[in-house]
C-alpha cells in the first residue's frame, strides 16, 4: 500500500499515471441506455472498471409549497454491497449522500428537467421524478459516471400515462421534458499534478478532488471540492478551464 502510494506519487511528480493515461484522459467510456424495462428511463455507464446503473421511476405527488407548479426531482444513491464488501446495507453513508447530492445539484442547476411541464394540478399534484443511482462496481470516479448515467437516463426517459387518478406504467409514450446536458468532470490532485477521471488506486492516494458540472453553454452549474487537501486560486482556474474543454467531448456520449 505504502509502496504503491510512493510509486503513484513518483509518477505524478513527472505528470505520469499508473495506467499511462494523459492527465486529462478518461478511461474508456461505455454508455448504454434503456437497460431496465421496468424503469421509465435507465442507463448503464462504465468508465474503465467503474460501473453505475441509473434508473428513473416516476410517480405523482404534492409539489413543494414554495414551487406549486414545479415537478419534483429526487436523487438517491446506493452503494450496493455487491460492488464492495465495505458497502453494508443500512442508512446511506457520507460518500453515497455526497454522490447523490452532487449529481442532484448538477442536474438541478442546469435546469435539465423542465419541471414546469411536470405540473398536473397547480399546488396539488405534480410528477415526481426519482433518479436512483446504483453502483455496481466501484473503481474510482463514481461522480462523473453517475452524473453521466443520470443525464443519459433522463434524456431517454418516457413518461407513463395518467388516467384519472391512476398511473399506467404499461403505456409510456411521451418523452420526459428535458432541456440540457450538464456534464460533470472531476480532477484529482496527486502530489502536485491534477489528473482527470481518477481510478481507484489514484483516489486512494489523492489528497483532493474538484468536480465541475458544465452546462451546454460552458457555464458552470455546480462545484464540489472533496477530500482534505487544499486548492490554490490558480488551481481552481486551471480545473475550470480543463473541465469545460473535456465536457464537450464527454457530452457526445449521450445519445
Amino acid at each position, binding site marked *: 500500500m505504502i509502496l504503491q502510494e510512493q510509486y503513484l506519487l513518483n509518477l505524478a511528480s513527472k505528470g505520469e499515471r499508473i495506467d499511462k493515461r494523459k492527465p486529462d484522459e478518461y478511461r474508456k467510456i461505455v454508455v448504454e441506455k434503456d437497460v431496465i424495462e*421496468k424503469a421509465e428511463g435507465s442507463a448503464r455507464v462504465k468508465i474503465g472498471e467503474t460501473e453505475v*446503473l441509473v434508473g428513473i*421511476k416516476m*410517480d405523482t405527488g404534492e409539489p413543494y409549497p414554495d414551487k406549486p407548479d414545479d415537478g419534483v426531482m429526487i436523487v*438517491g444513491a446506493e452503494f450496493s454491497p455487491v*460492488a464492495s464488501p465495505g458497502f453494508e446495507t443500512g442508512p446511506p453513508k457520507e460518500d453515497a449522500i455526497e454522490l447523490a447530492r452532487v449529481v442532484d445539484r448538477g442536474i438541478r442547476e442546469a435546469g435539465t428537467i423542465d419541471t414546469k411541464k411536470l405540473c398536473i394540478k397547480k399546488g396539488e399534484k405534480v410528477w415526481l421524478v426519482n433518479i*436512483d443511482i446504483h453502483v*455496481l*462496481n466501484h473503481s474510482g470516479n463514481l461522480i462523473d459516471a453517475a452524473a453521466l448515467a443520470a443525464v443519459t437516463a433522463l434524456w431517454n426517459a418516457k413518461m407513463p400515462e395518467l388516467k384519472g387518478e391512476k398511473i399506467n406504467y404499461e403505456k409510456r409514450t411521451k418523452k420526459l421534458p428535458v432541456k440540457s446536458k450538464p456534464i460533470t468532470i472531476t480532477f484529482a490532485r496527486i502530489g502536485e499534478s491534477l489528473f482527470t477521471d481518477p481510478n481507484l488506486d489514484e483516489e486512494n492516494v489523492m489528497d483532493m478532488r474538484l468536480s465541475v458540472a458544465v452546462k451546454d453553454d460552458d457555464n458552470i452549474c455546480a462545484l464540489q471540492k472533496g477530500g482534505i487537501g487544499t486548492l490554490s486560486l490558480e488551481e481552481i482556474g486551471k480545473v475550470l478551464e480543463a473541465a469545460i474543454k473535456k465536457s464537450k467531448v464527454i457530452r457526445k456520449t449521450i445519445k
Partner: protein
Amino acid sequence: MKRLNSRKPGELRPVVVKAGVIEQADGSALVSLGRTTAIAAVYGPAILHPRRLQLSDKTFLRTVYAMAPFSTTERVRPGHSRRSTEICMVTRHSLEPALFLEENPKAGISVYIDILQADSGTRTAGINAASVALADAGISMRDLVASVAVGKVDGEYFLDLEGKEEDVTKCDIPVAYMPRSKKVTLLQMDGDISAKEVKELVNLAVKGCEILYEKQKQALKERWSLK
C-alpha cells in the same frame, strides 16, 4: 389461459447465466429468467468481523437480498422490509446445504444479491445467481443449487411463473434443489391445492431445476475456459 410470450406450461423463460460479472468480488454471477435479473457477489471466506458474529463450529454465511429502487413498476424504497428479511433467511437456508461451512470456523462468507429487475421469481433468480457466484469464488461445494417457482393456472401446471401469471395462479411454490444429491433445499408455498398437486408441482419444479443446473455448469465452464 395461454402463457405469456407463447411459452409452453412446462417451459422455462429465456435463461441467461453469466459467471464473473463483478470485478471486485471474489465470485459473482448474473442470472436472468425472462425480465427478472439478479446479480450476486460473493466476498470471502475471510476472518469475520465483528468478532461476536463468529461461530465456533462453522463459517458464518451472510446473505443479503435487496431490490434496486427502479426494479419494479412501483419504486422500491431502500432498506429492509419484512419480505426481504425472510428472503435473506430462506436464501441462506437454500445455499448452506451445498457448502462445507464446518471447514472454516470463525470465518465469514458474504453473499450479496441485487435484483436489478423484478418480474416474478426474484428469490429463485437470486438463489441461482448466488450458487454460481459461490462456485465462481472457488468455494468448495457439494453441489450447485438451482431454483425455480411453479404454479397452477386454469388447471394447468406452469413452470417458472412470470409477470401477471403470478396474479392468477392458484398457488406459488418456489423450490430450490441440489440436482446431484436430489434434495430440496427451499420449499415454500402459498395457495389452495391438494397434497397430490403439491407433489406433482414440486416434481415439475425439480425438472426445471435440472435444466437450470445445466445452464449454471455451462456458465462456469465458459468463465473458467476463458481464463
